[in-house]
């Protein structure tokens, strides 16, 4: 006997694309963060924007929460199903609708895999810049929801810098268009508001992406250090010199071991810290920059230095780096991927502090990070079969995140708040900031059905009765006059 809600969905979807049986539901109960599991009441597999819109309207009418999911790679539990809710799986909406090499833009459906945009643009000498490590799997829709970054965001910025326009369906089923085909817009930056909203404002149906010219040359180097701090300090020096490489990444010994075992990029296995720096651009400029970079690196005293001699070696270096998270699965049955930010100047200090915490707790921590951005990814290793191990690992993860806040950084660089960090958000923001966020959320999704419980914890909402004057206004610090 179908529930009335499922019966309504079955008017939209044929049986094969409306999953309500156990095997279908358990397959969607986790995303890339398996510490959380929740079985949805149904999974739908839309193949057109119209189906998505009708589904959202159906949810709105029946007060059923929904979460949109691409390929389920979120590391913060962003696409974890919501209790008594449905999953709208967008992965079949994977068409590139238009690619305009003259205007340098692509209009895509949200289920397109990130790397496929670059593949499609390659023949025009263009690329899509944001390159999360999971770029061969993760979808543009998910990138939009979490404002994803990646190694090359150091130079080019995050996803929000590369989205020109959006067609969206709001949680109440209304369809809207934000932005357009130009970076400049006369309206408030609605696109900027939607990108990174973690699914709380609805679902993107069509996305206009900015493409950039493929750099003429790349020069990629690896340098190994005897201490992690030395690698971190080298990064601070490079930044301070005014050079802006395309990417600067650091891996510690555990992640080097794991990635080498997975991909064999030729990383030095005895390094305490491996620094990867990539310069890119026009040949003459890159050659000049390389001279400066070489001098800076020499001064930082690495014991190993190697430049990728061809495209294959470069690709291997990056493949190793981008496989690091998953490769750590070789070292430990379970781990928590953390994502925090510290000011770049305090990178070395933060790393030492993390190492100290790791020793103190007796828990191994592997470190992989976008050093140029100060974006840390400590991987906290534990064995879920041991009683209390997850809890203990979570305690350490919490201390690392608090460290990031204390250092003047952020609780997330690119993985988002999702389920994982929602309790830390109020530690980073003032109650008044939190309250503003809740107000915006309520205005856009008054019935609280779009990915509820992610990012903003419902139970912890500050009293909304205080709407009116901003607390700072009340305190006389700011005024509207």
């Amino acid at each position, binding site marked *: 006997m179908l529930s009335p809600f499922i019966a309504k969905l079955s008017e939209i979807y044929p049986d094969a694309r409306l999953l309500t049986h*156990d095997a279908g539901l*358990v397959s969607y109960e986790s995303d890339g963060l398996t510490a959380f599991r929740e079985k949805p009441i149904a999974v739908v597999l839309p193949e057109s924007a119209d189906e998505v819109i009708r589904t959202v309207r159906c949810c709105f009418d029946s007060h059923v929460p929904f979460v949109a999911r691409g390929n389920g790679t979120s590391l913060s539990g962003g696409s974890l199903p919501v209790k008594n809710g449905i999953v709208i799986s967008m992965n079949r909406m994977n068409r590139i609708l238009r690619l305009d090499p003259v205007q340098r833009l692509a209009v895509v459906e949200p289920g397109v895999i990130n790397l496929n945009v670059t593949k499609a643009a390659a023949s025009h000498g263009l690329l899509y810049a944001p390159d999360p490590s999971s770029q061969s799997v993760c979808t543009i829709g998910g990138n939009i929801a979490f404002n994803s970054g990646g190694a090359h965001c150091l130079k080019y910025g995050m996803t929000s810098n590369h989205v020109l326009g959006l067609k969206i369906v709001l949680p109440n089923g209304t369809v809207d268009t934000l932005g357009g085909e130009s970076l400049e817009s006369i309206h408030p930056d609605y696109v900027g508001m939607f990108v990174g909203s973690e699914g709380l404002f609805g679902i993107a149906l069509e996305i206009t992406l900015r493409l950039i010219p493929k750099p003429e040359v790349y020069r990629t180097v690896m340098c190994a250090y005897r201490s992690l701090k030395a690698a971190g300090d080298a990064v601070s020096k490079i930044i301070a010199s005014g050079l802006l490489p395309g990417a600067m990444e650091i891996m510690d010994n555990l992640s080097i071991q794991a990635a080498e075992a997975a991909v064999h990029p030729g990383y030095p296995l005895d390094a305490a810290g491996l620094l990867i720096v990539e310069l890119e651009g026009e040949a003459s400029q890159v050659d000049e920059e390389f001279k400066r970079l070489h001098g800076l690196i020499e001064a930082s005293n690495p014991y190993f230095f190697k430049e990728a001699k061809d495209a294959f070696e470069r690709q291997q270096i990056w493949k190793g780096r981008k496989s690091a998270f*998953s490769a750590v699965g070789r070292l430990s049955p379970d781990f928590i991927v953390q994502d925090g930010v510290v000011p770049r100047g305090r990178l070395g200090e933060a790393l030492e502090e993390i190492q100290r915490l790791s020793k103190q707790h007796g828990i191994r921590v592997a470190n992989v990070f976008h050093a140029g951005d100060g974006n840390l990814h400590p991987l906290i290793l534990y064995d879920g079969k041991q009683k209390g191990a997850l809890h203990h690992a979570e305690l350490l993860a919490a201390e690392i995140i608090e460290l990031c806040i204390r250092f003047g950084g952020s609780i997330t660089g690119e993985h988002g708040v999702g389920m994982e960090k929602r309790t830390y958000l109020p530690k980073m923001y003032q109650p008044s900031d939190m309250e503003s966020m809740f107000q915006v959320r309520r205005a856009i999704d008054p019935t609280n059905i779009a990915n509820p419980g992610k990012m903003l914890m419902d139970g912890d909402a500050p009293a909304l009765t205080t709407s009116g004057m901003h607390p700072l206004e009340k305190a006389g610090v700011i005024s509207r006059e």
Partner: protein
Amino acid sequence: MEHKIDLEAIGSPQADAMAHAISTCVHCGFCLPACPTYQVLGEEMDSPRGRIVLMRGVLEQNLPLEEATPYLDRCLGCLGCETACPSGVAYGELLSSFRAHTQDKRKRPIADQMAHMMASQTLPFPNRFRWAALLGRLAKPIAGIFPTPIRAMLGLVPSRLPDSARLPVFTPAKGVRRGQVGLLAGCVQQVLAPDINLATVRVLSENGFDVHVPVGQGCCGALSMHTGDAKMARRLAAVNLDLFPPNLDAIITNAAGCGSGVKEYALLFRGDPLEAKAAHLANRVQDVSQFLDSIEMISLKPLEKTLRVAYHDACHLAHAQGITSAPRRLLRQIPGLELCEIPDGEICCGSAGTYNIEQPQIANTLGTSKAKHIASLGVDVVAMGNIGCMVQIRNHLAKLKPDKVAIPVLHTVQLLDRAYRNE
């Protein structure tokens, strides 16, 4: 991933291997784009990650086997996911062990059972298969009256079988003798393409190796193993364990499916009295391309005119055995041969052992897509190292342009043989 599998309750010698594979998976999803069924069907249950979750559910006794079975049956076992997996999940070991573990507990529709039985009782036995193929040819005109799986099987029956050829038990090395090898003669291939074995023997002999083909060999059991019939697989494999002389440099196989199957013997025989013997044989087996690449090949004669060749990676060679560069290096040694890469080459052609009989729809989609990619290259020949892929790709190339002469499909070693013989 965390699991709550009660290893003792499962009680199979492969339980540890299954639990280990499940706990190694971190659910990152890197396998999704590498999975042919996820590409075609676009749902999580038909992805490697999803299937691991389903197997976990069944092993934890949280999910009824019947719920998981359709999705596990749809897995090609191509192991594209293993190549893509950064965590090193031994998916193949998990899948074979799981299929073996659940073989007796599962229910299949009668037509599927019949097709499965017909395949498993004929393919491994060259004489039976020869008769079955002849019967099948007679039945072709009335294929429409049979249920789908059997119709699919008839569709694969070749319209003409090559004459059977007897393999010499011993072929001496030509020129300076460099060593001696054994040849695993295989089953299906002996009937469908006896020339592959003959070419292998000639190329090995040309390169200074004595070639032994011991009498009494049977199927290596790989086909049964990969569909979960572990008992049958062990029975077939046991026949070959004692046949090869001890002083060989290697035992050569020229079918990727067989090579990968034999290399898994240690797991298949785990806990069996024959385990040590089986593991020993497994260690001696090498694919013909792997072996020829490890020796210095006698130089090949230049071709009369340039030959453009696409090399197709058989999944059981590339993903299961990690052999991708060796065959390419061999082919490049033929002067005048230009090697081309097939777009999306890492995706399975849909042959996958008996998959094209058991899941004809998905197999057709993959086969058509592979044929289109090959045809887009404008090559003279397509080369590969597995008889299953050869049958599948030949069929789909022919279907693509029924009115034209299809691109010839050859085994890597057949191309080498022709180059040596200047054909």
